[in-house]
């Protein structure tokens, strides 16, 4: 499987990373080289193997579904690049 320039642009768009036209070729070479190397996994027989999602080998704990934290908008907004009152501010989305 080899990624073409259109796929590179599509992945970048899904990842919300701006890619300039002159960067496409380098990314194509790098990503194809990594994916080519990963192809070796196709030689492993995985029939009947259950996928492993993580390293934790214990049941997830349940907890009460209650609010345990919050009530400090100043702390939450302290790192905001832009704010409007107690809200995060972004460029206008709806015309």
């Amino acid at each position, binding site marked *: 499987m080899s990624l073409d320039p259109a796929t590179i642009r599509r992945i970048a768009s899904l990842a*919300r990373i701006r890619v300039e036209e002159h960067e496409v070729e380098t990314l194509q070479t790098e990503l194809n080289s990594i994916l080519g190397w990963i192809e070796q996994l196709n030689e492993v027989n995985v029939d009947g193997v259950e996928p492993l999602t993580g390293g934790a080998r214990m049941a997830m704990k349940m907890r009460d579904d209650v609010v345990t934290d919050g009530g400090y908008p100043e702390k939450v907004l302290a790192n905001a690049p832009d704010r409007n009152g107690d809200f995060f501010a972004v460029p206008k989305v709806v015309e």
Partner: protein
Amino acid sequence: MSQLTDLTIVQARDGLRAKDFTAEDLTLAHLSAIEALNPRLNAFITVSHSQALDQARAADKALAAGEQLALTGIPLAIKDLFCTAGVRTTAGSKILEPFVPPYESSVTANLLRDGAVFLGKANLDEFAMGSSNMTSAYGPVENPWKRRQDANAVLVPGGSSGGSAAAVAARLAMGATGTDTGGSIRQPASFCGLVGVKPSYGRCSRWGVVAFASSLDHPGPFARTVRDGAILLGSMAGHDPKDSTSADVPVPDYEAACARGVKGLRIGVPAEYRSDDMPGEIEALWRQGLDWLRAAGAEIVDVSLPHTKYGLATYYIVAPAEASSNLARYDGVRFGSRRDGEDLRDLYERTRAEGFGPEVRRRIMIGTYVLSAGYYDAYYLRAQKIRALILKDFTDVFAHVDALLTPTAPSAAFAQGENMDDPIKMYLNDVFTVPANLAGVPAISVPAGLDANGLPLGLQVIGKVFDEETVFAVAAEVERAAGFTALPSIRAGG
């Protein structure tokens, strides 16, 4: 008396108790070492001078009142991936340049609870993605060790926890925190002549640690001795309700485990860790390590971990997949840097293109691709199945042996600029360390010898899940037998 910066944590603890010196003396000695050497080594991104002195004075008050906890007055470096309340936390990335967390990570809160002093935030590969510290947006870190033949070459400290390793090796800190997702504690420990501990998955809370790959990220310590590493892990570890994958199991006395010895233990030697292109001196050191353990009463057993060779490729699907999801939060809206755009989408895309470095962008894109519709089964699901086979390899051998001994890394520290032309070459650094992350089993790198150039080489001890005690016991025996006393050329007072 030797310099304060040369003391181990055990020696400093005894000295503080005996009032040979104060915690303020100890912290000041390290702060002046940082002032002298950090401009060259670049091990710290942020030095928290006044906070460290306040913490040291508080430690002196506690000591005067007869209260000495596990780490009272011990000055540490904190990898800049752990959120520290009121102290900037960058993750080595431009995108977090202005970020000052309003909260403290659970692991660093545990260290503070036990009286530790934080000297500052240690440099790292951007978002912990790298094996050389070359991807940091805050510049590379210089390894304090030098090649005998080529003393002008600037070597890398390894990565991703390169600043933590350089700081402890150069005596700028008595210990440090790191995180290990594919070898990011053990490989830099090997490159810098240190002890590096990656505990079992779930042993140390990930809460408040900037996430790279959640199912593979393991916080752990760096130290100059195995016993110091045991003391640090004992403080960092423990159940945390804020991390749903944190293990609710008791934390044993790791320091005591260091004195257990290895008599009667069965130590496995995995055949698949041997390769034709392994440098002769690393293979020789490995054999030497096995001889030391045999001489101390352990039984050496040949074992097989048949899926070892697929570990790296599996890792390079699973880790980028999780990273692409974890790093989606950096959108320039709630925290971090922002680059304005024509509309909201353009703002996201410009913020992320400018805020992330090339290696991070590459991994996010690989992760996005392997999770995308039509490719999920072929890549991600297949990788998760192979991950299950890798775990089964470990489960099978640990039915017969107590621990494994392997080399930590396939080489000694390399020079800045080497292995940079091809991402896969850099990835190969982690070939021996990645399997323990995929399986979640504990592992330690312990300095065992020097190569022909006078550079440190580490051996890795891998153990059963939640049996860090045996891993400490074996590592302590390797340390005792190796008698590793070599010192880096660049160090405080050196």
